[in-house]
């Protein structure tokens, strides 16, 4: 834990973004989520979640914002969380307290899927 925080303190946003892009370095990405104070945003745009896969530390609150002209929902595959319908610019937040992988989708447009990995 301490090692991760130290690395992040140096160049958190750049490293986090780069590592998320290449899809490797999950530890570092996790530490980024943790160090960014426990608040991470996911944008819903063009019928997709961005980023589609998000890795965060336990205790992180993820906030989804709908940027589409069409309403969407955020519903976890295992019913761990479930938003009400989000019209344009409406938000939904959920705090991930337990580690695990949480797949989710839009229950209106189920082709829209995403994942939150909590470490």
């Amino acid at each position, binding site marked *: 834990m301490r090692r991760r925080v130290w690395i992040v303190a140096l160049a958190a946003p750049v490293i986090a973004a780069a590592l998320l892009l290449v899809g490797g370095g999950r530890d570092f990405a996790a530490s980024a989520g943790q160090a960014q104070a426990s608040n991470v945003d996911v944008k819903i745009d*063009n019928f997709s979640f961005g980023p589609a896969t998000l890795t965060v530390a336990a205790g992180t609150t993820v906030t989804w914002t709908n940027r589409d*002209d069409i*309403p969407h929902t955020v519903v976890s595959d295992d019913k761990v969380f479930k938003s009400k*319908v989000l*019209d*344009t610019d409406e938000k939904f937040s959920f705090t991930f307290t337990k580690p695990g992988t949480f797949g*989710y989708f839009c229950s*209106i447009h*189920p*082709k829209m899927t995403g994942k939150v990995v909590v470490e």
Partner: protein
Amino acid sequence: MANKVKDEILHDHNHDGIDRRGFLKCMAWAGTGALCVMQGGVLKSYSLSRLSDLGGSAAAAGELSFVQISDSHMGFNKPANPDVAGTLKVAVDKINGLSAPPEFLLHTGDISHLSKPEEFDTVDQILKATGKEVFFVPGEHDVLNDDGAQFRERYGKGAKGAGWYSFEKRGVHFIGLVNVMNLKAGGLGTLGPEQLEWLEDDVKHLKHSTPIVVFAHIPLWTVYPDWGWGTEDSAQALAYLKKFGSVTVLNGHIHQTMQKVEGNVTFHTAASTAFPQPEPGKAPSPGPMKVPAEQLRSVLGITDVNYVRGQHALAVVDSSLA
């Protein structure tokens, strides 16, 4: 009959035949009116502008005609159409102006945009002006937040399960199906085992010569799975309908008209009365398509369906609101 009409085309999805003006070419397939007559499994289209050439043809004077409307999305107020109540009223005017008045209306879902009671109220109020009975099936926008309880309370009295039902009109068997409930991550529309079982039972005792019209919100044929435009278990449903000589499937959801013939089954999707959506794969997402205001009504529309006894043919006429 067909040889009277010079601009007869086969519906081959190549957009030819109804593109009367260059700039409308890309829009033509999406909403410009066409009369479609199915005979012997082949669907023929005629430009609406030549409809008068058909005169008192069988298609124009069938024994049963009804209108399909779809995707009113009452409550939607974004730039693609800031006045969806207005365009629905235009659709109603169009229906009231049909030379052969329809017996009833089918609404293939997305009545509302956000399942709000006032949205349903507005649609009910506007459709009242037709004076016709309306049969509904829900779209995914009609069952938000409450698993469709409100929809069933309003429109599904006497229906089974999530709101499926069947009825007879002049010897034609109509089946309203629900494929917008319990959608699974990554999946398409779903009918579910309970509804499929009901369907099998519902058609079991019908004569093979009975014309069947199935209506549901999401297409029961795979239009474009990447955008979820299809139904997971529709093949099973269609298997139960194989024995029938004439099956017509009417859907909405994709906000554009499309037709396909597969054996004894003709598939048809109706235009929206609210806003158009892009052609499959021709945009990053299936979101509302913004067209210049003066073109909007040309890509919205209604569908007039005419059944002629003895011909096993349903004439499907798409009219734009322009």
